[in-house]
């Protein structure tokens, strides 16, 4: 597959924006459109685009961990939140909230739901990374050694 300069530049530009957007969605999601699942999908799509650009090195640069680490972290966060809510005497995943007054920002409300949502986010990202990991080698031989490609 021939590499396109326009595609490459666009992806580079979009990638950072998409990552910021995904993080925003994760945290804003409880009150505005968004949430862990959508946020994770946006981040996953951005990573996948980056991968498609052929520049695996970039993905590796961004992702300093093994692809299954986010899976594990995500499951631990989600399951941990469930256990926490039960341990504190509520129904499973009946979340609690607490407001903090942060200087300069104002009232910040923290709920256990956000932690759970972060778990969902991690799992979606992990899923995308796992798929890329699975396909990485199968794809590469099709890239016939264009400049900038990683050679085996």
């Amino acid at each position: 597959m021939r590499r396109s300069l326009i595609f490459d530049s666009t992806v580079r530009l979009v990638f950072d924006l998409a990552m910021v957007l995904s993080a925003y969605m994760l945290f804003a999601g409880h009150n505005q459109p968004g949430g862990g699942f959508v946020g994770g999908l946006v981040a996953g799509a951005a990573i996948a685009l980056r991968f498609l650009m052929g520049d695996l090195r970039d993905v590796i640069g961004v992702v300093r961990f093994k692809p299954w680490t986010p899976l594990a972290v995500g499951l631990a966060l989600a399951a941990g939140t469930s256990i926490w809510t039960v341990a504190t005497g509520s129904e499973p995943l009946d979340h609690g909230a607490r407001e903090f007054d942060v200087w300069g920002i104002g009232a910040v409300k923290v709920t256990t739901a956000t932690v759970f949502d972060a778990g969902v986010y991690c799992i979606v990202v992990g899923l995308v990374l796992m798929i890329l990991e699975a396909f990485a080698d199968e794809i590469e031989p099709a890239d016939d050694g264009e400049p900038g490609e990683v050679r085996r």
Partner: protein
Amino acid sequence: MIVALLGLHVVVGAATLAFSRRLGRLGLVLGAVPMVAVVAWLLSAAGGVLDGRPVVGTLEWVPSLGLSLDVRVDAFTFLMLLIVSGTGTLVVAYAWSYFGRGPEAGRVAGLLTMFAGAMVGVVVADNLLFLYVCWELTSITSYLLIGIDDQKAEARAAATHALVVTAMGGLVMLAGLILLGQQAGTYSLSGLLSSPPSGTVTSVALVLILVGAFTKSAQYPFHSWLPGAMVAPTPISAYLHSAAMVKAGVYLVARLAPAFADTGMWRPLVVSVGLTTMIAGGLRAFRPFDLKQILAFGTISQLGFMMVLLGIGRPETTAAGCALLLAHALFKAALFMVVGVVDHQIHSRDIRELPQLGSGWTSIKVAAVVGAASMAAVPPLAGFISKEMAYGSLVDGTGGDRLVLVGIVVGSILTAAYSIRVAVALVGPAAVRTEEPAPLVAPSPAVAFVAPPVLLTAATVVLGTVPLVWSGLIDSASGALNQWSPTHGPHVHLALWHGVGPALVLSIVTLAMGSTVFALRRPFARWQAALAPRTTGAEVYDGVVARVLSGAGRITAVVQSGSLPVYVAVILATAAAAPTVALVTGGWWSGWPDAYGRIGQLPVAALMVVAAVAATLATRRFVAAVLLGTVGYGMAIFFVIQGAPDLALTQFSVETLSVVAFLLILRKLPDRFEKPAPAMGQPLRIVVSLAAGAFVVVMALAASGARTAAPVSQEMVEQAYPKGYGHNIVNVILVDIRGIDTLGEITVLATAAIGIAALARSSAKPRRSGVEHHRREVGG
């Protein structure tokens, strides 16, 4: 207290296993603690329990399933616990010398403790399901113990054989236990026995339970795993496969027999299987030359004997069965230990090679002779008392009893004969050996090594000469069983001398005939070799396993054709057909919905229709993928128009990701679609596609008018902020109201991710992981 003892087994066993390397054989000391604790508790509780006041306890587990840790120790359980924990303690002491500083000692100790806990659980459980769980735990620990030498293929195969047979029987038994529990309305064992259900279902349940008991206690035709299990180190054979685990089946039969013996097939089934096992096992005990194999078939034979006595379910035979349980545990464990000592010192247990044991072996020889004599029912030993009770309980009976009696006498004659064979092999091997023996260079065993079998032998002698010692115990134990019997039966008094009567005559006949068979062993062996079936049980098992595997392979080849179009067709056809049946049979049509909600929907719908039709006509894969993506994005616009930004966002992201995934895969595939593979022709494809498409349309139309109840969403809107602390209702639903669902779904996602990675790796040629490969490149 009993529940705490069970917990102690688990904790100590787990700890010993965890530190098995560091502990070495010190683990055996640790592992003996729970067993000694049980024995100590038994002694402290003996007065009340043997007087007929059972100790009960309970611990809630899963109340909604009727599952609780109900325990109940009556006098029969007391007897079983004495066997389980008493011999367990001696076996652990014996293992100390057997394993020496060997590497397995720690692991064996931990597993033995775990096993002992499971076995204690089986005999104290007063809840059928709890009993079942412990039952399977004994199978699993037995599997691990038989396969303790996991480097040996033979050991692994034997372990698997034992597990497959006993676990299969266990599953059949579980079905029986559930049927029985449902029929009785209670899973409590004592409740079940006090008001036993009857009828066809109960009869079926009992047969299923008997299958479980037969597999566990190595009854014909399920016996073949037990001789194989002899590859385990001898302490394990002595404990699991003679004294404790194989008695679990006998235990369950003994428990149920007084209440259920007259129901359905119980008595004919138990008696015929037990007698067959007793006689066939006795015959087979002549053929091997390996002492452990002889003892294994002897154990099978004796288990059949116990099965008959305890399965008949009449007070007199039950009492004889209780006596035999204890007597057998004593002499068989002792004999196994003796064989283990010989094997350990001389490195052989082949009766053709054993040398004449000289000085320093006196105690071993005495233990061997006394153990074999007790097995053959020579007075005045424990085995004689129990066998004479068995004869006595059957001589006065009806015609059926006479038949059983004849079978038992035949089995006992064989038992006497192979007992002599064992004793002669150990004491005077010249009589049975065929070649000149190797000169004995092996050292005689240490005192600590010999002490456990000698202790057991001493018990055999004491119980035989002073029957008063265990008369009360057997009376209470059989009384505890017989309280559920229609006729409670008289009290039992064990005695050495019952006067001259039919039982004594039969005992003398048994011994005389047994000696004769041994004396005529050469013609007997020829006769046996000519008549014995050509296939052994183990070969039958191997054949069945091979058939099952090849059959499964053939079915898999048909069901999993490997053709993607076929898979998709099956999925789509199922998805279309199954709900359509439900739609057609119910009242489903409630009129056409509105043609459109907002005017903006119309152009988007037109775009989606065009893209969808174009996708079916596209000849290039890439074009088809992009067109499918267009349909998906159109759906997202729909959501925007309808005022569902969250759905729209999700749809956009999912669509983007799908298109990217398509692109990834399209690189590997040819540019254009090929002609349909022969697996599924074009017409069939079109039919399935149209059916699936038509179904989706009908379903959507039907669902839009099908609402009869008020939507739940109103309540969710109201509760979202006060209960879920969020204004975004969709998100609150996901993380709070339906949070558990989400947890389940993301777990599925994670599992799927691992599955995808595994599939991709297994299908590709061996290689390094892609990301890691690149990381190395970046680093270097």
